[in-house]
């Protein structure tokens, strides 16, 4: 659980980290690496929010790609078909996805285990089907191209400048999740996960807390979708594919469910390695699946668990040494 460190120290860490990361496009100019970095930022937003809903709040959500896709499509369609400015598309995207998540989530939060998994999986499939079929609105299987880009004072956001936007979105997401975990609401979410009966006896409205966690996750997925739309300036229904959700789940699990550093490292490794190995998407998913099975069998706490284990061993050794 989150312990409030000296607050000044925490602010310092975040600010320094943000500044360091922001310097990236100063040193790296090639579009290939910039795209890699933007993709990584987007994927991190998705895996961190998935880690939150599954790890911190204890609920399945196999509809993650659906919320990502809706968050991507809404501003894209509005910009391309109805001329809505991309910036205004941001609150519209997050708000509409959150409303959708609330409506869909209200009946869902009562479910648990396999039933919740199956239901959210079904929702994910349903969303993809609907987007593919509503051809007039979404362009069906072909999607939408040539979405008008984001502008700042007439200056088009792309490449290195877009990276900064993506980074800002990532930092905002992470900070939000970190803050929530350390707040009363976050404590309530964790308590609900651990023991809903006990949580109710503390005055916690378990249903509302679960729904809130679910909706926050959907909103963050939508944010990632918005970032994706205005970088690629195109939409296609494979953004809602359940395969994507599985990919993110594997990343989260290999990184270590519940461990933020683990998930960050896991996501980074699993996003970048296939690029450098030149793997096609199918082989990527296959490799992740195999890796996932290996981790499940031999190291179920993932990379994060291994890190914690190392830390503990280190502490024990240090304690022994100082005792001598």
């Amino acid at each position, binding site marked *: 659980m989150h312990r409030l460190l000296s607050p000044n120290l925490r602010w310092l860490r975040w600010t320094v980290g943000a500044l360091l990361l922001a310097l990236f496009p100063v040193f790296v100019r090639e579009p290939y690496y910039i795209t890699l970095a933007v993709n990584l930022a987007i994927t991190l937003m998705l895996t961190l929010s998935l880690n939150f809903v599954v790890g911190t709040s204890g609920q399945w959500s196999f509809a993650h790609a659906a919320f990502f896709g809706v968050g991507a499509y809404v501003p894209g369609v509005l910009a391309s078909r109805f001329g809505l400015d991309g910036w205004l598309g941001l609150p519209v995207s997050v708000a509409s996805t959150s409303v959708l998540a609330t409506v869909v989530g209200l009946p869902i939060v009562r479910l648990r285990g396999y039933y919740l998994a199956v239901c959210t999986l079904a929702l994910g499939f349903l969303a993809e089907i609907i987007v593919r079929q509503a051809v007039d609105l979404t362009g069906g299987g072909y999607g939408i191209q040539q979405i008008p880009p984001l502008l700042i004072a007439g200056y088009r956001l792309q490449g290195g400048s877009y990276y900064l936007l993506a980074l800002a979105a990532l930092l905002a997401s992470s900070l939000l999740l970190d803050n929530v975990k350390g707040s009363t609401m976050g404590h309530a979410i964790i*308590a609900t996960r651990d023991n809903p009966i006990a949580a109710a006896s503390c005055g916690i409205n378990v249903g509302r807390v679960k729904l809130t966690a679910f909706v926050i996750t959907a909103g963050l997925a939508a944010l990632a979708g918005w970032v994706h739309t205005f970088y690629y300036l195109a939409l296609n229904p494979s953004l809602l594919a359940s395969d994507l959700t599985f990919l993110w789940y594997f990343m989260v699990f290999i990184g270590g469910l519940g461990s933020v550093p683990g998930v960050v490292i896991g996501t980074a490794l699993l996003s970048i390695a296939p690029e450098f190995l030149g793997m096609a998407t199918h082989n990527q998913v296959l490799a992740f699946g195999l890796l996932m099975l290996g981790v499940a069998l031999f190291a179920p706490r993932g990379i994060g668990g291994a890190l914690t284990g190392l830390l503990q061993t280190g502490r024990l050794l240090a304690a022994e040494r100082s005792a001598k």
Partner: protein
Amino acid sequence: MTEPTLRVEQLTKRFGGLLAVDSISFDVGEGEICAVIGPNGAGKTTLFNIIAGERKPDAGRVRLQDEDITGFADYDVARRGIGRSFQLVHLFESMSVAENVLLGAEDHRQLRMLSAATHLGGHRRRLEIARAQADEVLALVGIKHLTDRPIGSLSFGQQRLVGAARALASRPRLLLLDEPAAGLSRGELEVLRAAILRVRSRPTSILIVEHNVEFVLSLCDRGIVMNFGRKIAEGTPDEIRHSEAVLEVYLGRKH
């Protein structure tokens, strides 16, 4: 005379054809320790669960001082000022003792999303107030020395005390204890007795449902005895010990 902390009026609950709680009425006064005893299947647990908001009664009323809380949901009952412990303890496994108790102290009535996301808007102040309340309660129950221990390392009796501390952290007017003595050693029973007496002096009213008649009669101010869903005796511990109805039930003696 001031309003009693808890007033139960004609409470009735049926399960199919079985009358689990049959028109039970009693009061718990301010700062009073009241016991509910009776053999297995007497309906004590059902009565307890109705008061705690886990079940809705078929008839009757439950009043918390001047408020009618009949049929309120469990979290709502907790918010109005009734804290409860569990027979199976039900602690938050991933947290330490202090964190468990903190959760009882925190105010969960409003979500306060914006404050949670930004840590602004009085967030720090509220957390400090809750921490102070939790600390106080840890000392009151006598488990301050266990503050940072993970739940898994505690004995059963210690876990029970943590559960009670968590229930008390929100400063409820009424504390419900569900078989607190079950499974405790002699030493642990003494610790529990002392803790209950300290709690009462706050003042907090306490309602104990308990199987261990000896333990609870030595502790309470008044009590009621249930059998087959009905109240068969009521009064001070002495009155109960000498009540014919009670003797008949527990000893099978006929007069």
